[in-house]
């Protein structure tokens, strides 16, 4: 476990009071110890998955600022967040890895990208687009923005005028409806 800088407790106290300068300094200071700790905890994980863990931990820290007691050391608090939030991120990453193939690994001269299975995927994509077009307007827009255009919830919220919560609900319902539509089509 990394040695804790004695100033970090004080910086966390300042962050709890809204001091953005010291909060920024704290977050920047803990990135490297977090990366090292993540690598030590999940030695088999690739760099992208480990960076996901670091980001999830920083997000977890941000939403847990009110839980920190400045009388207690800071690093156990941060590592505790990494253990729980990072663990979730790693599980998501493993699930995604089981159903996705990184195309960076495919040689440019390979004909792997024009196989029969990809032609099937093309047909499935067509069915998916047709199903999306049949969704109610709100759900369709939410799916298009968050899933197809890759906008963050905040960006999609700004673009559409819908709240983040409404976007989440619409996306969730849209995915449920798509499942039913596609399942019915099979």
């Amino acid at each position: 476990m990394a040695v804790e800088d004695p100033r970090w407790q004080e910086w966390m106290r300042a962050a709890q009071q809204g001091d953005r300068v010291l909060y920024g300094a704290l977050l920047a200071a803990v990135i490297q110890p977090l990366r090292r700790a993540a690598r030590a905890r999940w030695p088999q994980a690739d760099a992208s998955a480990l960076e996901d863990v670091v980001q999830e931990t920083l997000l977890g820290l941000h939403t847990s600022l009110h839980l920190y007691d400045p009388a207690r050391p800071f690093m156990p608090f941060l590592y505790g967040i990494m253990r729980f939030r990072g663990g979730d991120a790693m599980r998501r990453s493993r699930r995604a890895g089981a159903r996705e193939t990184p195309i960076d690994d495919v040689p440019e001269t390979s004909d792997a990208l024009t196989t029969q299975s990809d032609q099937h995927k093309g047909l499935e994509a067509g069915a998916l687009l047709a199903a999306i077009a049949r969704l109610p307007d709100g759900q369709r827009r939410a799916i298009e923005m968050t899933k197809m255009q890759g906008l963050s919830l905040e960006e999609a919220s700004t673009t559409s005028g819908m709240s983040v919560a409404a976007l989440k609900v619409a996306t969730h319902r849209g995915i449920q409806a798509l499942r039913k539509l596609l399942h019915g089509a099979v």
Partner: protein
Amino acid sequence: METERLIEQLVGGLTPVHRIARPVTRLAWWLLISLPAAGLVVWFFGPRPDLAARLADRSFLIEEGAALLTAFVGIYAALCAGLPDQPDWKVWLPMAPMALWFGVLGQQCLDVFLRLGPGGLQVTSDAMCLPAIALGGLVPAIAITVMLRRSGKVRTTHACLCGALGAAALGAAALRLYHTEDAAIMVIVWQLGSVVLFSLLAGAIARLFADTRPDSISRTRL
């Protein structure tokens, strides 16, 4: 999203926060709300006629003490579970008083069995226990639910399980003060059974108790 850009967003979205109190302090608040509420339930139904005699009985006192200890330690564990820097052993702490509680009642069952044989351990219906414990544990359960919504999104299932255990154990301890059912096997099956049932139910629906508001800043992926 790059980590450096995420940090910029997090810093930009920083607002002052109200620091949460320590678990012991929050436990004291819970007791301040829950003990009078449980007392009111006892007062409403009326204390059992032989209460004075039962309070002089050592085994009854140990049993009530174990139930109350399960309640207090359960709530403390629930409050610790939501804090990332609290050790795991604290989450399992309620198992100790609960084992004592089971042990005291089990010992009473064994005594009855040795004296009367299997006929002394007959279980009959006692439909009052489940709703009575639910009623006695209602305010304590609401209080711990409100408190847990300010806790972190870690060990949510454990927090809900321990919180429900604490609330139901207090309801069961109150029930013993106004319900004249003393057969240990009946107490185990109906009263402890209700406590375990409520705890498992809360653990199963833990995600509904947790604060599901979205983070103010999220990464690109939904």
